[in-house]
């Protein structure tokens, strides 16, 4: 047994507490910007958690995960544009559309391995990007303004910023719980087994292709939910939310936080987006710092922040 009080646990608990208490602080200080920023961070963390399920636990290096953000977002946007404002319609449609899309893309992409898989998921995501950019009826390149957020029954009001933040946070925690339960189930064990040795898993009788596909679809659907939230937060959806650099951002969050750990993607999302915000405050050319920083993480910080914390823990113990 690991001692209960270690850096990893402390950081996780502090982060959760901070996320839960944040609206209290922003309410008292009147810092609305911080609440908006963190709503976005929580939504992106949800997307990163979904990517972690397939990338971290399943070993499927999708470089097209942002496509589901777009599908979920456009499902809400298009329905709102056509006058369907009911969230009980919009959100299930967003989830179903992402699931269906993930099923088709997954069924094709999972026929391949390794670098082919990376490039194919990337290419399909770009295809989706160009498809939505070509839809003149729904704004094309310029995107689609959403005039009214999804409507739910009486007490739920997505236009209330604090309430919306807590809804996003609750969904994020729900997703983490779901992924945690999944990865500790028989299904999750099979997925992780296929990640480490696919041939052996098949030899002992697991149809790994189907397991992977189910994992792919669950991850895509969860990310579609994040897309629906993102569209509601921005009151706007445009093809740029599924541009391939977004997929890159999601991968960075997962790797930076720590792959195949339940809270790693959340830590990664907070770290990356806060860092971006801080760097863009310093210089207009902040990506010239972020790029090399990323290189350094790849070269020297294996296992991401979670790995660093784990190493710090083992040092303290020894």
């Amino acid at each position, binding site marked *: 047994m690991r001692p209960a009080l270690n850096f990893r646990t402390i950081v996780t608990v502090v982060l959760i507490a901070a996320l839960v208490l944040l609206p209290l602080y922003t309410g008292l200080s009147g810092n609305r910007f911080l609440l908006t920023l963190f709503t976005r961070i929580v939504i992106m963390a949800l997307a990163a958690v979904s990517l972690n399920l397939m990338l971290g636990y399943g070993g499927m290096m999708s470089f097209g995960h942002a496509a589901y953000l777009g599908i979920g977002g456009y499902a809400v946007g298009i329905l709102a544009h056509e006058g369907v404002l009911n969230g009980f319609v919009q959100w299930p449609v967003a989830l179903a559309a992402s699931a269906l899309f993930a099923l088709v893309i997954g069924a094709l992409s999972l026929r391949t391995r390794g670098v082919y898989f*990376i490039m194919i998921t990337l290419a399909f995501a770009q295809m989706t990007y160009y498809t939505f950019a070509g839809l003149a009826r729904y704004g094309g390149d310029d995107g689609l303004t959403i005039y009214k957020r999804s409507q739910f029954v009486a007490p739920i009001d997505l236009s209330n910023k604090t309430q919306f933040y807590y809804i996003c946070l609750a969904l994020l925690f729900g997703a983490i719980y779901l992924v945690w339960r999944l990865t500790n189930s028989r299904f999750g064990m099979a997925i992780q087994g296929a990640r480490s040795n696919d041939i052996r898993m098949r030899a002992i009788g697991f149809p790994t292709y189907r397991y992977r596909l189910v994992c792919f679809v669950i991850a895509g659907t969860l990310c579609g939910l994040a897309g629906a939230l993102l569209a509601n937060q921005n009151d706007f959806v445009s093809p740029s939310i599924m541009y391939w650099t977004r997929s890159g951002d999601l991968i960075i969050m997962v790797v930076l936080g720590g792959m195949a750990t339940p809270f790693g993607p959340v830590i990664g999302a907070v770290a990356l987006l806060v860092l971006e915000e801080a760097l863009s405050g310093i210089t207009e050319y902040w990506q010239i710092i972020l790029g090399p920083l990323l290189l350094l993480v790849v070269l020297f910080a294996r296992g991401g922040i979670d790995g660093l914390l784990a190493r710090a823990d083992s040092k303290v113990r020894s």
Partner: protein
Amino acid sequence: MTLFIEQCLNGLQFGLLLFLLAAGLTLVFGIMDLVNLAHGSLYMIGAYFAATFAAWTGSFVLGAILALLATLLVGMVVEVVVMRRIYGRDHLDHVLATFGLILFFDEAVRLIWGPAGLSLSLPPWLSAPVQILPGVNYSAYRLAVIVVTLAVAGFLYVLVMRTRIGMLIRAGASNREMVGALGVNIKLLYTLVFGLGAALAGLAGLMQAPILTVQIGMGENIVILAFVITVIGGIGSIRGALVAALLVGFIDTLGRAFFPDILRMLLSKEAAATLAPALSSMLIYLLMAVVLVVKPEGLFSAGNK
């Protein structure tokens, strides 16, 4: 008919240009097992260098040659500083590291050349149209691009299949340790191969520069097409890259030119106008999906990966 011939030539020209990118990508992957997302950055840098050097020297050809050498140099520096450290790592590490490089290069270009795009104008002897068939005129520059890329493709073939360096490259691809043990400086060889890939990307960029605007992010859109090509052709296969590049070049160009008309015949005018732009940009991805269903390893898989 004239339009059709013209579009076919455009398709050929675009396909050959894509081949230059895909060849570099597939060469680097086949030999170093390296996934290089930043390949498009080298394409962009080639174009920026060409525009700058052509303005300095006042000569298009001289500018192009200088740009080619400069891109080769940048490629070799990138190999020594970054890539060398990540060979043998997980592909995910390659993706992240080269993604970091893209951010760096995009921002560096913005810092040096500013956010506005550049343009590269052609000398008069290249900008005039020439008559290729009775009554059919075609851009002299695009013809020149076709000739140059064909020459480069021939050069690549001779280099890889018929020279000592090419032999070492192929040997290094199949067994790195063995070639090193036989006394070949494999590190230098890798640097040269990466530099060659960079130069090919730079050449593609500088040749595309007069046709399109030179701008930040220009490499990223086209490099994804190059990925599609390497997947269709089979990663590591230069022959596959050539066939797939031509296929993609033709389908993309002809699709954009004629697909809306075909759609208009089948559907109502409004439906066609809505769907055509979205569908014609999907064509090559559909091609990729079909190839994947039939041959998941690509048309000409190199077989050793």
